[in-house]
């Protein structure tokens, strides 16, 4: 614990000017996820069955694939921002914190990429 004042510690460093960006993107993604999340949950529950042909037909039909891709991307993005806040608040050790943030970012980007690829593969019908 340092006895320097908070002002003394930050003086001269300037702000990173990125704080607002995190806040703003978290809001944008949360607003987008209201319709996207509700759509996904309702569409899933409205499916008559969850067997392969029904679900594949649903993903291939209409506008499902692009909206599903949006849901995966925005969901992963929002999740990354949220997990980041939790890690920043509860992981004290700087090294562990950096590691956790890096792993979380990698994991979310990989998840989004795989998710988009999977939806495209289903929708474009390259799978048997």
């Amino acid at each position, binding site marked *: 614990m340092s006895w320097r004042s908070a002002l003394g510690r930050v003086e001269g460093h300037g702000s990173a000017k990125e704080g607002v960006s995190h806040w703003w993107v978290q809001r944008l993604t*949360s607003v987008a996820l*209201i319709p996207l999340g509700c759509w996904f949950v309702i569409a899933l529950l409205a499916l008559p*069955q*969850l067997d392969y042909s029904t679900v594949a037909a649903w993903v291939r039909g209409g506008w499902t694939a692009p909206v599903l891709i949006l849901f995966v991307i925005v*969901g*992963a993005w929002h999740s990354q921002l*949220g997990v980041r806040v*939790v890690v920043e608040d509860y992981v004290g050790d700087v090294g562990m914190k950096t590691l956790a943030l890096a792993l979380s970012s990698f994991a979310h980007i990989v*998840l989004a990429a795989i998710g988009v690829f999977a939806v495209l593969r289903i929708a474009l019908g390259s*799978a048997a």
Partner: protein
Amino acid sequence: MSPPETSGAPPRGRPLSPHMSIYRMSRYSLLSSISNRFAGLLLSLGLLLLLYWLISLAEGARAYAGAHAVLSSLPLKVIYALLALAFAYHLAAGVRHLVWDTGHGLSRQQSQRSARWVFAIALLIAAVLIWWALFSGAGAQ
């Protein structure tokens, strides 16, 4: 001496952060805040299930049949109920946050009232979703 009971926001003028060293969260705001984080984390884990489901679907009918057996097992159904609750709560609490961001509902009384509303609405939405999943549509099988 108990800490002063302010929301941290001045009635007018520029918003101020609460003085963290003397700020005491009320039980309601503490509970609603930690629940929202927990719900969000649960939904992040739900993302993994969504990915598993989509990947197996992309792999074709045989892979999907295997994943379907896992995904429709009883422990997973319990997890879906928890995810429904987390989704409903995160949705309601998220809307509450968006309202706060416009500068409304920040007073102590208002935020305690909205915390209770959020719990009630979340329970209602979750109950409807779980009911729907249990008694009609795909989840009934």
